[in-house]
C-alpha cells in the first residue's frame, strides 16, 4: 500500500479497513455482484486516488467515479461559446483557473488567450466584479461554473453588482445542480449502483433533505461524506452497513460541516437570483432535465446570455471518446481506447483528463497504468 503511510492516523485507517472487510464478509455478495458505490463529488475522486483508497478495499467493492467535477462535464460547444464571447473586442472574460485548459472544438480558453483574447483567471467572482468597477468602459463577463457549492457566491456577486449599480458586469451562467443528475444516473438503464457517497460541500449548502428521494424511491443508501481519506473510508463503511441491514437512508458522516438544513443565507441567495432551466447539456451524459440554472428575469441585465448573442453551438464529443461511459461507471478510465495514448493530461481530449478531480487524470497520475496492466 503505497500511499497509506501518509494517512494521518494509520491505525484508524487500518481499523476501518478491517471493519469494512468484516462487514463485506457478511453480505451476500454473490447475489449482488461486486458492490458498486458511486462517489458523486470530484473532491472525493481526487482524495480516493491520492491516498490509494481503492487499493485498500476488498475486491468485492468497486468505486464508481461520478459526474461531480463541474469542469469535467462541460460540453465542448460550451467552451466554444466562452471563446466566442471572449473574442468580442470590448470583453474581459473572467474564469476560474480550472476551466482554462478544457478543450473546445477548436481551442481552449488558454489558447484563445494566447491568440489575443482578453481572458483572465480569477479566484473569486468578486474579483471579476472588481475588474468591472475598475474598467467601466469594458464589458466584464464572469464564467459562472460549479454545483451548489459555488452557486451562492455568483448569486451574491450579482446582488452586489445590483446594489452598486454596476452596468458592465454579467455572468455566463453555467451552474449545475446535483440532484437531477443523480436521478438521471439512477434512471440510466446501463448503470448499476448500490449506494452513494454524497458530496460534502454541496450538502453544506443544500442540506440533506434533497437526497431523501434516493433512499425512499430508489431504495439506495446515501452517506454525505467529508473529503479526507478517513472520512471516505468511514462513509463507505456506513453505506455497507446500510446494505447489510437492508436499509436505505440518508446519513451524514460530515456533520462537523454539513447541517441537515443546509446554509439558509446561501439558499436564499440562490433562489433570489436563479431559476431552473428546462434542461441542460452535459458532456458525456447528454441533456438532463432541470439540471442547470439560469439568471431570473429580475436580474436580466447581469445575464451574459441576454447581453450577447451566444452561438450556442452543440458539438458531439469525438467519436472514440468514452467520457460518458466513464462518468456513469459503465467502463473504467483505462478501458477507454484513447486513455494514455491519444488522451493524456498534457494533451487531453476529454475533460475528465483535464482536472485533477477527473477520473481519467486521477488514474493517469496515480497508478492507473498499474491497474491496466493487472487487468489485461
Amino acid at each position: 500500500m503505497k500511499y497509506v503511510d501518509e494517512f494521518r492516523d494509520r491505525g484508524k485507517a487500518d481499523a476501518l479497513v478491517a471493519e469494512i472487510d468484516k462487514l463485506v464478509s457478511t453480505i451476500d455478495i454473490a447475489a449482488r455482484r461486486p458492490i458498486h458505490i458511486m462517489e458523486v463529488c470530484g473532491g472525493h475522486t481526487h482524495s480516493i486516488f491520492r491516498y490509494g483508497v481503492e487499493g485498500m478495499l476488498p475486491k468485492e467493492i468497486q468505486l464508481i467515479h461520478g459526474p461531480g467535477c463541474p469542469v469535467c462535464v462541460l460540453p465542448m460547444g460550451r467552451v466554444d461559446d466562452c471563446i466566442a464571447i471572449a473574442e468580442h473586442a470590448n470583453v474581459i472574460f473572467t474564469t476560474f483557473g480550472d476551466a482554462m485548459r478544457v478543450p473546445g472544438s477548436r481551442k481552449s480558453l488558454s489558447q484563445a488567450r494566447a491568440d489575443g483574447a482578453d481572458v483572465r483567471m480569477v479566484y473569486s467572482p468578486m474579483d471579476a466584479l472588481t475588474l468591472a468597477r475598475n474598467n467601466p468602459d469594458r464589458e466584464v463577463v464572469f464564467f459562472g461554473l460549479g454545483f451548489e457549492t459555488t452557486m451562492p457566491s455568483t448569486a451574491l456577486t450579482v446582488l452586489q453588482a445590483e446594489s452598486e449599480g454596476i452596468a458592465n458586469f454579467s455572468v455566463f451562467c453555467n451552474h449545475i445542480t446535483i440532484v437531477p443528475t443523480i436521478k438521471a444516473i439512477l434512471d440510466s438503464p446501463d448503470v448499476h449502483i448500490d449506494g452513494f457517497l454524497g458530496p460534502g460541500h454541496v450538502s453544506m449548502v443544500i442540506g440533506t433533505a434533497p437526497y431523501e428521494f434516493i433512499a425512499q424511491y430508489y431504495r439506495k443508501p446515501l452517506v454525505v461524506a467529508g473529503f479526507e481519506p478517513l472520512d471516505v473510508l468511514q462513509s463507505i463503511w456506513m453505506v455497507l452497513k446500510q446494505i447489510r441491514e437492508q436499509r436505505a437512508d440518508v446519513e451524514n458522516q460530515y456533520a462537523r460541516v454539513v447541517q441537515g438544513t443546509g446554509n439558509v443565507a446561501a439558499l436564499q441567495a440562490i433562489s433570489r437570483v436563479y431559476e431552473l432551466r428546462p434542461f441542460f447539456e452535459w458532456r458525456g451524459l447528454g441533456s438532463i432535465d432541470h439540471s442547470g440554472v439560469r439568471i431570473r428575469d429580475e436580474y436580466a441585465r447581469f445575464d451574459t446570455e441576454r447581453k450577447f448573442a451566444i452561438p450556442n453551438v452543440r458539438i458531439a464529443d469525438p467519436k472514440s471518446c468514452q467520457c460518458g461511459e466513464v462518468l456513469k461507471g459503465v467502463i473504467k478510465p483505462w478501458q477507454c481506447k484513447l486513455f494514455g495514448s491519444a488522451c493524456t493530461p498534457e494533451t487531453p481530449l476529454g475533460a475528465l483528463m483535464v482536472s485533477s478531480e477527473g477520473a481519467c487524470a486521477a488514474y493517469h497520475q496515480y497508478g492507473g497504468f498499474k491497474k491496466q496492466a493487472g487487468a489485461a
Partner: protein
Amino acid sequence: MCLGIPGRIVKIDDASRKLATVDVAGVKRQINIACIVNDAHPIDACVGDWVLVHVGFAMARIDEQQAEETLRILKELGEAQEQLEAMRLSAAG
C-alpha cells in the same frame, strides 16, 4: 474550486456589505461572509472565527483543530498551493 480552504477572520472591513479580511495560511484577503452571519451570530461576533472559504466566500464555520487538519490534507492533495496562489494573485491584481 470545490474544496474550501480554512481561514480565520481577522477584521470586519464593511459591515453593511458583509466583507471581512481573512487570513488563509498567511495570505490575507477580503472575503464575503454573508453566508455565515445570522441573528444568532451577528457580524461583530465573527472576528476570530475559523471558516471554510470557497472562491472568496465563507461558507461554513469550523473549529480550529479541524481547520488545521483540513489545511494539512489540502496541502497533501496539492489543493492548498493552487488556491493560495490564486488568492495571492488576485489580492495583488
